């Protein structure tokens, strides 16, 4: 069997020694994203280092910058929670005026992107800054101790959506920021998962290569927040794709009629049961006493696929 082997650079921008948990999903995102970014910069501008990073408050900011060390081998600015996209806009606009070649990478978690940073993201996309916004989606505020975000999926336990007599856990559908970003007619919008690192790498490289703003939303499981074993991070991220819970797609210039899908089954039938994805995770444990809630989750995911123009069958 031939093994797909994309040319991944040996350059590192995410250095070892950071303080992330064992098996941290977002840490894998940081490593791959910066590598892909530097490759794109080399191809486009002849300089692999032609980028700077603006980072919102969040786990990856905290674990990568433990005084007196840093895990970043690139210019890096940490700004308050809501400001990554706006600060990146500022760096980009100034670079442009100074005639500097390169692109800015803005990074935020789901809380910093879907909630408090949504306004800044919208402004950045609308003003057409040459910035890639990378949203690492671990589906809750993990840095402050696992509170829900608008990107938390239906049914999930968090400390501010505790399940119990009067609550199923998180009781609202997940907000898909990628679709909001696409509605800005941004040149490139994609979803990815660390369950398919090659796909994520390619999308990150593409995002860095296009002229103008791009947005990538990548699923990155959180070991303590999802209540999962640390060796299962990638496996769970892959199960999210295979069960149909995490659509992989690309939307260019807001063209919702020509969405490109990845790893989509030809017959629209996903082969892995959603329960396989849910049962490894402590945050969904309570759902198995409430089968109607699992059905509701499935209905919501089908609805997302329908919005994307696909009728699907989930197990």
């Amino acid at each position, binding site marked *: 069997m031939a093994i797909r082997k994309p040319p991944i650079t040996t350059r590192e921008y995410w250095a070892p020694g950071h303080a992330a948990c064992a098996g941290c999903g977002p840490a894998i995102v940081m490593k791959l994203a910066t590598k892909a970014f530097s490759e794109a910069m080399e191809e486009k501008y002849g300089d692999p280092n032609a980028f700077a990073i603006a980072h919102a*408050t969040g786990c990856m900011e905290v674990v990568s910058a433990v005084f007196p060390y840093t895990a970043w081998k690139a210019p890096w600015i*940490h700004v*308050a*929670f*809501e400001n990554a996209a706006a600060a990146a806009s500022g760096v980009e606009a100034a670079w442009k005026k100074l005639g500097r070649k390169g692109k800015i990478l803005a990074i935020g978690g789901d*809380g910093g992107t879907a*909630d*408090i940073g*949504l306004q800044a993201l919208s402004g950045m996309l609308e003003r057409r800054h040459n910035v890639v916004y990378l949203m690492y989606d671990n589906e809750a*505020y993990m*840095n*402050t*101790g696992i*509170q*829900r975000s*608008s990107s938390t999926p239906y049914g999930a336990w968090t*400390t*501010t*959506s*505790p399940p*119990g007599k*009067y*609550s199923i856990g998180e009781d609202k559908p997940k907000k898909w920021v990628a679709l909001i970003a696409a509605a800005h007619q941004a040149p490139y919008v994609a979803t990815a998962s660390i369950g398919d690192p090659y796909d994520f790498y390619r999308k990150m490289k593409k995002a860095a290569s296009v002229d103008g703003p791009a947005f990538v939303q990548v699923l990155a499981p959180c070991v303590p927040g999802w209540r999962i074993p640390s060796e299962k991070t990638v496996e769970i991220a892959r199960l999210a794709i295979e069960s149909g819970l995490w659509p992989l797609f690309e939307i260019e210039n807001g063209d919702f009629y020509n969405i490109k899908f990845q790893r989509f089954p030809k017959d629209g039938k996903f082969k892995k049961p959603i329960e396989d994805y849910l049962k490894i995770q402590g945050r969904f444990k309570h759902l198995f006493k409430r089968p109607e809630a699992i059905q509701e989750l499935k209905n919501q995911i089908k609805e997302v696929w329908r919005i994307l123009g696909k009728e699907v069958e989930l197990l």
Partner: protein
Amino acid sequence: MRYPFPVGTVDFIQGDEAIARAAILAGCRFYAGYPITPASEIFEAMSIYMPLVDGVSIQMEDEIGSIAAVVGASWAGAKSMTATSGPGFSLMMENLGYAIMTETPLVLVNVQRSGPSTGQPTLAAQGDLMQAIWGTHGDHSLIVLAPATVQEAFDMTIKAFNLAEKYRTPVILLTDAEVGHMRERVYAPHPDELELIYRKLPANEEEAKYPFGDIHGDLVPPMPVFGKGHHTYVTGLTHDEKGRPKTVESEIHEKLLKRIVEKIEKNKKDIVDYEGYGLEDAEIVIIGFGIVTRSAMRAVKELRKKGIKAGLLKLNVLWPFDFELIERIAEKAGKIYVVEMNLGQLYHMVKEGANGKVPVELIPKIGGEIHTPKEIIERIKDNLR
């Protein structure tokens, strides 16, 4: 009414948890929040308790939304609260001013951490004092309380709701990461032991027409409830007694703002609260608020053992500020020290109160750690040498 936590008895809980429980006992049934260290535990407790007491705990998209939702819920008639820390507190400043201008009762808890900006998220500080009092733009007044123990955090939360409802004003509970995260013994009173104040409602349709008019002569207008049939008009613009915008009439602006300031100032005696120790004969008086006063208390006791007549003034209410009290102390003392976990904020108010009658010296500390009693003692003894 059954409470989802023990009442009329003691418990061993965190300061943040105590604030959440006390709020519910005080009648708070609406909480809107946003995760932030070191205040998240208040929100987490509210997430569990509120559904069990038929209340609402809602997560907003940011702190601007949190306080705005609290303002809305308060006009809907609910006792409402939000909690945050430094960066979120900064975001709330605009709507804090709105709540002052529209005389909306609410409680805003600031579990202080070191700033500016993201600063030291997990460590305590007292650097938001001036911001709590003066952070929002324009002339204004409000009430600021400062607990030093978990029990005080509990009791002052109830007091905060009472003051907010009584004077139709936002009340800030200015605590810190140390009190918020510390676990201590707390007595939670039984609801029968509590005296709770609820806002004054319009007695009739005629009164409801003047939601911003001093119709009872006590400077606090009755507050209509949205959805009770009154056509109430609320705006952050300068408004007349009926709430209609009057943005160029100087006398209306002056009348409104003076009443908003005076309803706090003229009731200062009712609001201010402090504790003194050894003030009767103290030659050296330490003044402070919150967590550092516990170190200062120890320092005072140690100094007294060494024959130095020291005393402590612990301020429980930081605004309205009792400048006259400081002046009275200045008349008797030989020297005043201000102990605070910042580079000098309370210091300036104390200096104004002391009015040049006695030297005032600052003992500041920043970096996230509380002054040790030894640090305070050594500083005072150095000066005596």
